[in-house]
């Protein structure tokens, strides 16, 4: 599932394209840059974080899939996007996610790791911080994570 229903999408961004498949709940970083408003420029694209030095854009709220749309249609019952389309990114708000790497501690800053999942401040190596942990993991491995990318 990657994301539980409960969330607060305080600020989202829908101006970036994504050219790879990914599961929702991962952190996306800049891939290539558009110019100006760049609302429909394919150059304005993001990718799943692959390095600690990546610059964060937002938490992915769609599943990005790669289907042969000439043979089957996209899953209309799920909020999924075809690879190459625009994705919705959460820049400020909170989600309940299981895209977590290692142990976390409530109240600590949240960072991302290569692969796009999130870790705690006490992880041995981590990125710039992108939010804060607001709970510990539940029995299914989900925790409440505030995203605040400034």
């Amino acid at each position, binding site marked *: 599932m990657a994301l539980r229903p409960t969330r*607060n*999408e305080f600020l989202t961004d829908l101006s970036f394209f994504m050219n790879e498949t990914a599961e929702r709940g991962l952190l996306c970083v800049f891939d290539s840059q558009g110019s100006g408003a760049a609302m429909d420029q394919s150059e304005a694209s993001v990718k799943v974080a692959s390095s600690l030095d990546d610059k964060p854009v937002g938490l992915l709220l769609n599943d990005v899939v790669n289907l042969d749309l000439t043979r089957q249609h996209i899953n209309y*019952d799920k909020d999924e996007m075809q690879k190459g389309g625009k994705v919705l990114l959460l820049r400020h708000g909170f989600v309940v996610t299981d895209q977590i790497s290692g142990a976390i501690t409530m109240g600590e800053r949240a960072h991302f790791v290569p692969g796009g999942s999130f870790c705690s401040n006490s992880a041995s190596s981590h990125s710039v911080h992108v939010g804060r942990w607001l709970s510990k993991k539940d029995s299914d491995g989900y925790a409440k994570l505030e995203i605040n990318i400034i």
Partner: protein
Amino acid sequence: MSKKFFEPTPEMNQLLSRAGSLQREESLAATSELAKALELPLRQGVMSGNILDGIFEAINLQPGATAEFPLDFLAPGTEKEFVAFTIPNHGRIPERHVEGDYVMVPTYDVGASIDWLLKYARDARWDVVGRAMDVLQGQFVKKMNDDGWHTLLSAGADRNILIYDGDASSGMFSKRLVSLLKVVMRRNGGGNSTSINRGELTDLYISPEGHEDIRNWGVDEVDPVTRRDLIVGEGGLLVRIFQVNLHTLDELGEGQEYQNFYTTDLSGTMPAGKNEIVVGLDLRNNDSFVMPVRAPVQVFEDEALHRQRRAGMYGWAEHGFAALDTRRVLLGAF
């Protein structure tokens, strides 16, 4: 099973005789009429003479339609995500974003044929040809029975739950087994005590041997009056226990094909001392077992057999089976 459909009338005898004519045009015309005459009862027979009745809901698909079935966004195990919470005097309530999913049930073609010598038809041996029609019907019935029940058994085995009465003797069907099945169906069906449309065991399919075990229930199982009824009553057997309908299936039981399918094809395991499975279903909600039908059974005359001095019919259908919610199936053993 379907003798009533094929009892010959003088007109049918005449039709059959003409079907056996050595004049090709006359034979084909009569055979074509015969196919049409037999198609409707054959369809009825397929749907009413099988062991899938009342379980699968046949859904006729329009041409070009896809067999897609949406799933409830409230998936099993996610109920705890949807509980109201305390809020302060003012403040923005968080969102509860829901999405669903769907499954596509593949449909597939099923074909069958039967043919006979023109001599049979010419001599109006209606018993032989009628029997051939029975066999043609039986081919479809058997195929659909197996496909439907294999779907049910697979769904039950997939749950990885097998209920049994540990106190009952090996191979003895006990009424406590029914009770245990009811409780587990309820416990694992979602919702709470007053939920609408919650899971409930309504029908239980057992082998004839298991059903006959009821006759041997001792005074610790049933009262003497009931025991007497079991012996002298019309039919002599209970057909309903604890509001659960009992059905017997010849295909269930030790060494029988659905038991073998469970143990061999599905690699299902049996508890120690238990020999055969029972299948419990929740048929109250009608929300799980679907049978999309893209094309019902159609029967045609075979024009190519005339040169071989034979006549025959062939037919096909296209359908599929699915158990959309496995919580509606529960396997037990005794």
